[in-house]
């Protein structure tokens, strides 16, 4: 109606806010952005079980529900925390339940991969006319290069491939894109795209670089062009990485053999080790995209293969982080886009499979200010419904943001100038909202 007036008021408000922010920044040091608060955690490792892991066969066993629900896994193991049991194929994780907490009442009710993956990693429902950035991109926005991050590689790293269906940066734009390693850390050498190039010696790298400079005829002719100045700057920065320490950072052969063995000599295990090295070197957010959990058929055979591998690697990661004094400042969160149907599909063509299940599932969190040894919420006797303390994606992500010192209500820069919050409002209170009970 009175759009012009509204805009004017808006701009006045904005001006005041800006002045206020500048003052705050003055008082609290020049590197704290508007959305930042005191932080417990410095870094996050997100272990993404791509496809959706079964909650019944990992952290929420239901031996009492019978064969139609738990299949062959009816002997859960007692963990080192009295009263907490997990799947029998996770013996190493069972020995350290005091280091992590289990949320058994995650829910969003969505059963499509892309929409569920979206809400679990952004905290927003799909279809809000705008594609929100994932946690990693939000962390890069609030704590990355604009706010004191000095690493040569991006503050947000993905091991080893992106999820594809899901745009990590959303509307934030390519500046906050994750660095995607490619390659396989379980191979020697770990060929990280853009950083490590096999068969080109350091001398030849230097020679080629000089040669390249001599051949830049157009660049020399079009002087003073902003686009080209930007080009030259980004090229310098790229060479800083290529010729710098990043190569060593990704060289896992410098790790002791027993450490590499402890994580398991497979792609996922070595990804976990790589994630530890990255956070140790200041990277803020590492996502490990761990494929193979979309087990519509042959579910139990797959679990027999995957669970031991996962158990070894994740327990090694928690132990290693803890031994190095990094667990207190590093959040590890484990989960996928949803759980899997508690009732097994024994009939063909599934022959013992589990479908997508968003009504109730589990997530594991550790470190960075999250307490260990707790269980949050509960599912019903068959793991089909949340029995108590529902935890919604924004509650989980809100807790992670809080521990990182990012205000979940902080504003994000919308391309069209609207007021956009990091997360939708969280209904806090006893037994709901942010996970105060384990923070």
């Amino acid at each position, binding site marked *: *109606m009175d*759009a012009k007036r509204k805009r004017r008021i808006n701009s006045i408000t904005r001006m005041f806010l800006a002045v206020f922010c500048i003052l705050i920044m003055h008082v609290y040091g020049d590197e704290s952005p508007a959305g930042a608060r005191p932080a417990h955690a410095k870094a996050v490792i997100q272990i993404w079980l791509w496809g959706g892991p079964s909650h019944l066969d990992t952290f929420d066993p239901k031996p009492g529900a019978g064969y139609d629900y738990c299949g062959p896994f009816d002997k859960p193991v007692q963990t080192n925390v009295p009263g907490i049991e997990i799947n029998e194929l996770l013996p190493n994780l069972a020995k350290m339940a005091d280091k992590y907490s289990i949320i058994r009442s995650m829910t969003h009710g969505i059963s499509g*991969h*892309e*929409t569920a993956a*979206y809400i679990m990693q952004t905290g927003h429902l*799909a*279809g809000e*006319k*705008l*594609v929100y950035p994932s946690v990693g991109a939000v962390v890069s926005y609030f704590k990355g290069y604009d706010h004191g991050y000095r690493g040569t590689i*991006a503050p947000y790293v993905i091991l080893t491939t*992106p999820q*594809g*269906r899901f745009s990590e940066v959303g*509307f934030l*734009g*390519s*500046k906050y*894109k994750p*660095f*995607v390693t*490619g390659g396989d850390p379980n191979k020697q050498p770990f*060929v990280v*795209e*853009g*950083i*490590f*190039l*096999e*068969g*080109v010696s350091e001398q*030849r*790298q230097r*020679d080629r670089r000089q*040669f*390249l400079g001599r*051949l*830049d*005829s*157009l*660049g*020399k*002719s*079009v*002087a*003073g*062009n902003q*686009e080209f100045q*930007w*080009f030259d700057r*980004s*090229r310098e*920065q*790229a060479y800083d990485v*290529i010729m710098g320490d990043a190569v060593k950072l990704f060289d896992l052969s410098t790790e002791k053999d027993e450490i590499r063995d402890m994580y398991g000599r497979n792609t996922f295990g070595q990804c976990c080790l790589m994630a530890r090295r990255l956070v140790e070197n200041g990277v803020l957010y590492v996502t490990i995209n761990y494929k193979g959990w979309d087990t519509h058929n042959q579910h139990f055979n797959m679990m027999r293969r995957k669970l031991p591998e996962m158990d070894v690697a994740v327990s090694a990661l928690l132990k290693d982080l803890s031994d190095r004094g990094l667990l207190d400042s590093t959040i590890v969160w484990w989960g996928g886009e949803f759980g899997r149907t508690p009732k097994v599909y024994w009939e063909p063509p599934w022959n013992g499979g589990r479908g997508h299940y968003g009504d109730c599932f589990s997530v594991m969190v550790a470190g960075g200010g999250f307490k260990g040894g707790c269980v949050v919420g509960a599912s019903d006797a068959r793991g089909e419904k949340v029995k108590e303390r529902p935890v919604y994606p924004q509650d989980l992500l809100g807790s992670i943001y809080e521990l990182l010192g990012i205000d979940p209500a902080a504003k994000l820069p919308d*391309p*069209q*100038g*609207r007021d956009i919050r990091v997360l939708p409002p969280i209904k806090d209170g006893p037994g709901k909202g942010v996970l105060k009970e384990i923070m």
Partner: protein
Amino acid sequence: MNVKKTVLLTVSWVFLACILHSAETAGEEQPASKIVYPYEIASWTVPGNDIDRFVLAALHKNGIDPSPQCSDEVFIRRVYLDTIGTPPEPGEVIAFLGDRRPDKRAILIDVLLDRNEFADYWSLKWCDILRVKAEFPINLWPNAVQAYHRWIHDSIRDNKPYDMFVRELLTSSGSNFCVPPVNFYRAVQARDPSSIAAAVALTFMGTRFDAVPETVSSGMSVFFSRIAYKKTAEWKEEIVYLNPAPAGTLEGVFPDGKEIKIAPDSDPRIVFADWLITPDNPWFAKNIVNRVWSWLMGRGIIHEPDDIRADNPASNPELLAYLEKELVGARYDLKHIYRLILNSRTYQQSSIPRTGNPDAEALFAHYPVRRLEAEVLLDILCRISGIGEEYVSPIPEPYTFIPRDQRNIMLADGSITGPFLELFGRPARDTGMESERNNKISDAQQMYLLNSTDIQRKIRSSQQLRRMTAVARGNKTELTRNVYMLFLSRFPTQTELENAESYFLTEGLLFNQGVEDLAWALINSKEFLYKH
């Protein structure tokens, strides 16, 4: 014969240019008289047209010198990339350089506008704007994406008049598989009348709904309040139709403030289309000529091209008005506008500015350098390497299988993507905004180009390079000339030749490593990565 002459001419130019060039210091502004070899020529050979009159008038008023005419080598690469998203083959370049007809540039423009790749390349652009994507957050579904893409492609190939094109998009009803333009109303993140109206305003009026008053947006939404959708027994088929439920008389308000009562028996979408598609509509022709201008000239006369509003004036209003009039006069033949722009001296200027004036770019005093689009760049790399990109769709359906030899500019579905396209700023097609496509170079792109196994593999597997190496039999001059022609669509200058030859003499460097490094260096040169 012609080739030899060209070479001779080229060599003499090289010497001349070297003498001139050695006198200059890079980084300093060059006086208008000095011509930069091999990118420019000294005097105009093309007649230009009315566009130049308007552009020069504005430049003159602001005391800005335009750049001289670009050389034939620059022109042929530029006009190929701009019109068909494909660089010329070496043979095409050599033939063009040898062509003595004075109007050879105009002839080439006509040829390119008729090439199949014209439709391939411009469907890509239109699919960005129309948000053609099978999955999240625009859910057209694979079969409909293919149908829609084919319809867009054929409309462009047949040069369907633009008013008809838009009318079909706005007023069609039927199945998403059989009546492809109905997908316009499905390619929105939310299907409420206001979201649809916003998509219409953005696409065909170049106007962002956030920038218009509430009254305008709600008045316009009325025209889209009777669109309905229903599923059929066919998997992923959907019918878009006019809701037959009694609606009473609707009261719509056109964006220009005019009110209208819409009788229950008339389709409000048609009422809106009738208002939009008229010669004196203040948005319709303006939006599209401004977009075409920005696609070819790197920047809208109103900038951004999808931000038309009263407080964002055109940098050259007379020029814009002229183009609008031309489009209407040519019965909405968009190729007429392409032809006008491409034949202008304004388009054929060199990209080397002659002024430090900050308004030079907005007033089109030179051709702006722009990084190649992700799909175009990938096509070139695939063509040189001989290896096509492999795509795997998350939804395996017959409609999502992409043959390996299909060009990347022909990818119909925004949901089918790969690491290269993601890295190089392909738009997500979520909003239809022009700014979604990001052609700004980043550190990560540089690292990929400079130092990835992927680029190394592409160079090493190139049959073309291998053949050139074999044919050259150790003759570094010939090899360098051919490699330059392959990557940059021109022959090297004397200095460049000398530089390359001396690099080949690097101690311990094998001949084929030298070839590899030359190709690598050219891929990493600005001249290769940019339209210029």
